[in-house]
């Protein structure tokens, strides 16, 4: 069984190219914002969640916070992929909201695959 990855980014091109690059290895779900992601999580249970940080309305950290509040027992592995994140935000998410790993954007295909497979 392929692992399922939910990828959240407000840039549609990032979502499309992510799917194009990883659809062979994983079952991909994508969301353009935190709200859409939470909607998907109502019915789906992906193995890995990868989120951008800077997004309108709900930031990546905010999404992770809500995830912890709504599904405190969820075992979903949480990764952040962002080109513009404050160290303080990342640390907060790691300490409080179960963020496992932060990756700077841009991130090469191989590195990202390694991370998805290891978390």
């Amino acid at each position, binding site marked *: 069984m392929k692992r399922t990855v939910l990828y959240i980014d407000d840039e549609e091109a*990032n979502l499309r*190219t992510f799917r*194009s690059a990883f659809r062979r290895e994983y079952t991909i779900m994508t969301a353009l914002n935190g709200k859409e992601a939470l909607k998907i999580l109502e019915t789906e249970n992906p193995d890995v969640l990868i989120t951008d940080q800077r997004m309108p309305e709900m930031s990546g950290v905010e999404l992770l916070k809500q995830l912890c509040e709504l599904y405190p027992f969820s075992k979903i592995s949480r990764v952040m992929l962002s080109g513009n994140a404050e160290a303080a935000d990342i640390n907060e998410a790691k300490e409080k909201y179960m963020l496992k790993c932060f990756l700077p954007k*841009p991130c090469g295909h191989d590195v990202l695959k390694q991370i998805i497979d290891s978390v």
Partner: protein
Amino acid sequence: MKKDDILLVDDNSENLKVLSSILKPKGYIIRLAMSGQKAIDSIKSKSPKLILLDVQMPDMDGYETCRILKNDKKLSQIPVIFVSALSGILDKVKAFEAGAVDYIEKPFHLDEVVARVNTHLTVKRQQEQLEEALKKVSQTQTKLFQAEKMASLGTLSAGIAHEINNPINFVNAGAAGIELDLIDLMKVLELYEKVDLKKSQPDISKRMKELKAEIDYDFIKDNLMSTIQDIKMGASRTEEIVKGLKRFSRVDGEEMLYVDVNKEIESNVKIIKRLTKKEIKFQLNLEKNITIIKGLPGQLNQLFMNLIMNAEQAIDQKGTIKIITSNKNGGVKILVADNGCGISEEFGDRIFDPFLTTKDVGEGTGLGLSISFGIVEHHNGKINYTSKIGVGTTFQIELPK
């Protein structure tokens, strides 16, 4: 205070004696010359603070001697006072035209000589102080301007870097996706090529042949793959530039720690030794009791990496890189010297400007030295260099404790 030295020039030894006897007790060091030529020789070997010059001398008179001095850029700043029995107004004008600052008539009064000498030495001293102060102001201004330029560039770079990261990310991922899709698609095509349509579908078979010729099918198959490699290379190069820009903007919140520059240098030399394909001899002369300075280890590490890498790149096939560390003014001094191609004089301090590169397109971002400059500046240090085309380049860095 250091004693001022005065050169007395007169062909008459009696005159020299008298002047000496007046000035020596006032605390001046007295030097003597008995002709214009001897005076010039003496001045060239060591500049005096003031010259008392007789007008009428055989061979080369005082006017001529003074003119020669004033035409020499190095010596023209030394004040010359004429001492002469000629009392005509034209004689005096001639003396001032030749470049004198004052004119003492013979016979002179003792106090007058001392007073005039004192006055001109004071003027000279103040002039020197003023020049020194002006030089400092101008240096500070240049530094300030540079620092401001770097700061605003830093802000701009940080903004650009963040904005470019997203598009690079999807160019990267997109290219990777297309590559995988193409590999799959090619497998399908390969199978299709094995199907013989000539008999079953002659029309389609004919049309396919025509179309393949028209679009240059074989070329497309090769070209697609290599174009994707080009796109990936373009993206990764852009990524490198953005990384450089980000470092440039110094957004890392690194902490000031104690740094042993010798250790940083040694570890970088090790890395570069492993990376280089050239025949490079490293001569390390590191001060054993090097002062431990306070700094940002990551940045300093990058500074040394940049400088040693530049030295490596300046060397064609075979060469030597010398690295010397020493303690200076309570801090440390680091020299990185190569015997490579050298930097053309025309560049001057512009080599520290961002995006100025002498390397071929794609080989350097032109950010290395401006980042280095920023790092040294950030540590309140100094960086400068000397270079000669074909001989080599030496970078000198001073970092305070």
